[in-house]
């Protein structure tokens, strides 16, 4: 049987079990981009709650007042930065995916928006680096036992800790982004390549 015969079958087919169309029900549907937005909302709230939890814990701990104040200000600034970036992410995702365009244009537009989002993500994580280093400096400065260790030991511990913290931050950001968004970028990229070839 050749393809033209299948084409005739296709034209003759009477589709059964078509779902009822109700524009009211459409509001309940979770579109693919809605899933991404939902992930972002989850990320936003989990980051904010985590940072607020850290603030609360710091404030209740029996630590030096100055230390608590410095850390409190740093974590509070991090919370503000988180809010700023997520506000950008939400705005970006509100505008993406123009399905009205030609297929290739629509895919390129989506890919561009994803790539832009990736750059926001990188900037977001980079913003945390100075905060992390400042927090570590404060912790070292306010920990009495570090005041009496030889310089080479102190340097080793401090540089080592900063490196571990930065690598952890990098890996966390990478894994997080790949898990939630990276796979979509790869998929859209391969579709664009397939169509442009």
């Amino acid at each position, binding site marked *: *049987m*050749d*393809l033209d*015969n*299948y*084409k005739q*079958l*296709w*034209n*003759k*087919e*009477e*589709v*059964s*079990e*078509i*779902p009822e*169309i109700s*524009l009211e*029900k*459409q509001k309940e*549907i979770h*579109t*693919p981009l809605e*899933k991404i937005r939902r992930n972002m909302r989850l990320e936003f709230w989990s980051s904010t709650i985590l940072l607020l939890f850290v603030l609360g814990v710091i404030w209740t701990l029996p630590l030096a007042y100055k230390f608590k104040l410095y850390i409190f200000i740093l974590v509070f600034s991090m919370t503000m930065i988180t809010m700023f970036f997520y506000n950008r992410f939400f705005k970006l995702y509100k505008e993406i*995916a123009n*399905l*009205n*365009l*030609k*297929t*290739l*244009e*629509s*895919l390129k537009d*989506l890919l561009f928006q994803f790539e832009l989002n990736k750059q926001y993500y990188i900037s977001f994580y980079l913003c945390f680096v100075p905060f992390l280093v400042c927090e570590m400096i404060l912790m070292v400065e306010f920990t009495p036992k570090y005041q009496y260790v030889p310089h080479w030991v102190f340097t080793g511990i401090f540089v080592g800790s900063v490196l571990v913290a930065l690598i952890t931050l990098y890996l966390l950001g990478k894994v997080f982004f790949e898990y939630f968004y990276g796979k*979509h970028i790869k998929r*859209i990229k391969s*579709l664009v390549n*397939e*169509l*442009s070839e």
Partner: protein
Amino acid sequence: MASQEKEFLEKIEKHKGVVFKISKMYMDSRDDQQDLFQEIIYQTWKSYDTFQGKSEFSTWLYRIALNTAIIFLKSQKRKSFIRNDDSVENFKIPHEDYDDKDDRNLKKMYEAIQKLNSIDKALIFYYLEDIPGKEMAAQLGISEVNARVKLNRAKEKLKNLIEK
């Protein structure tokens, strides 16, 4: 019901069969097909304001439907337990001398199409709907020559999958 909504529903009603066929091309399980169908209707309704009537409603609808299907993220629910449960009964060909063989062939065709990649599925859809090469190219945003080459490749792949 607002007049725009009524007008939209009337237009969609005429084409819902084809939209559901697109869902069947892109998704293998009944649940996913229904999700994609609803998604296409939703996206079309959302973009309805931009439909200016310069082209046929069907042309505009097919473009949005295929763009939605191409980027649709397949639901992961019950993935490991789900099997393709489309029995032959779900593929009905209405004619007087009803033949079960036609339904089986249709099922075979859908199963083969589902194995193609998203772009090839769109090309095959345009072929099955008899959309001219020029219009197909315009819808996809590629040159006509490129569209024809891609269509021939997709048809070859489909033929091999059906014959397997």
